[in-house]
């Protein structure tokens, strides 16, 4: 049982055809900017790695630190949060709060020994399909280098 449906992640950890590691990444994208940006990347037929599984949220400020922990504990290799650029938030200031909260979380995860590359943030506007593709490429590469997530390795 897993209320967020991430149950299958551990079982489905895919290895690429050549046996290399294909990271499983959860993306929390704000409805107003980044989700539309990702949409634009798609409709513009931009090529980028398929490793990010997107969950749409109203605002990057909606993302609870628990979401990140839950993803990492349930076997995701990395988490990406993406929202509107500072100043462009649909709710005026949601991304300001997100920025403050996640700066601390990132350092804290590092402190308890979780590779900081596993947790990433970006600002991508609705017009930045190209930036979204670039961010995903970078993030996937980063997390590929970080290797498979072993935080919950002992989970049976």
């Amino acid at each position, binding site marked *: *049982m*897993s209320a967020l449906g991430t*149950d299958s992640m551990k*079982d489905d950890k895919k290895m690429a055809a050549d046996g290399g590691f294909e990271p499983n990444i959860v993306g929390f994208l704000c409805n107003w900017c980044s989700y539309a940006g990702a949409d634009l990347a798609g409709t513009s037929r931009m090529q980028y790695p398929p490793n990010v599984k997107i969950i749409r949220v109203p605002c990057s400020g909606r993302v609870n630190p628990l979401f990140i922990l839950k993803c990492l504990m349930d076997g995701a290799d990395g988490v990406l949060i993406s929202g509107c650029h500072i100043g462009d938030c649909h709710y005026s200031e949601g991304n300001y709060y997100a920025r403050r909260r996640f700066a601390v979380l990132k350092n804290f995860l590092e402190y308890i020994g979780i590779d900081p590359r596993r947790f990433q943030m970006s600002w991508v506007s609705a017009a930045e399909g190209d930036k979204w593709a670039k961010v995903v490429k970078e993030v996937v590469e980063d997390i590929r280098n970080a290797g498979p997530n072993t935080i919950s390795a002992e989970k049976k």
Partner: protein
Amino acid sequence: MKKTVKKEALIALIENLMKDHEVVSPVETAGKGVFYRKIDKAKDVYLGPAFAVEPVKKFFLHPSEWICGCNKEEGTASPCPVPADDKKRVIFGVRPCEARGLVLLDKIFAPDDPAGYQDTSYIDNRSRSVIVGLACSVPDRTCFCVSLDGSPVETRGMDAVLFDMGDNFIVEILTEKGKSILGSLPGTIDAGSEKALEAAKEKTKKLVVKTVKAPDSLDASFKSDYWKKVSLSCLSCGVCTYLCPTCHCFDLVEEERKKLRCYDGCAFPDFTLETSGENPRPTKKERYRQRVFHKFDYFKKNFGENLCVGCGRCIRFCPVKIDISEVAAGAPIK
């Protein structure tokens, strides 16, 4: 059957036992206390005076025990067997109060009456384990076993027992199971050591200074405001219940196609919370009273004994030092 055994000989025996047994023993963790662990090096065995933080209960009633599960298949579900651990196990260093706790737990999970509820995993854990006790030599000031029909040197619930005599242990074998494990130890006992042992036992019993007069029945106090007063400082945490050698309440938890039996405790507000939102024990008063009643009243009515062995853990580890012995003894029963 008793014999005097050199400490090195015991360590050598444990080393040998580990080949075909699971060996559990208290292990000292620097700065953190003593914890029971499955050991892989005989020299890790700690048989000193300090008490383990968690009682040996957790090897019989696991804090989160997998009791059933199902396979993951498309569209259907089929039960999946829980892997059984049937390796022979020897547990060293079990204190008299903890062993007696097991005797009390037997009444609930493995009653003599075959028609009673028989808990298979508890019974399996019991039958695959040999308990080699360790008599206490330095009781803590929170210990009060003597007041509760116990003693720091008693042997109920053990298969064999060790008495620390300085350079040597005196080993007393109590059951066939104990003999199968420790029977091969060389040595005999002379009259002098026998006498020294008796003297040491008497001396240790006197070291248990805390005395409690547990009431015969708490009935009359049930509605008293006393319970509100004594529970005011309670934090509603699980320290006392989780560390108790006899507390055995649990919650069934479902996680990822598994059903788990996890420890739960009467101090938590969620323990009695019903789906409707109704909570029959809404405040600390009812919850704390429940714990005291279960220990010193309900269990006695059902089984003729107190459900407290006087190990003192709930007093030692209570973050706000609530003393169950004082609370029980002070209950207004007139």
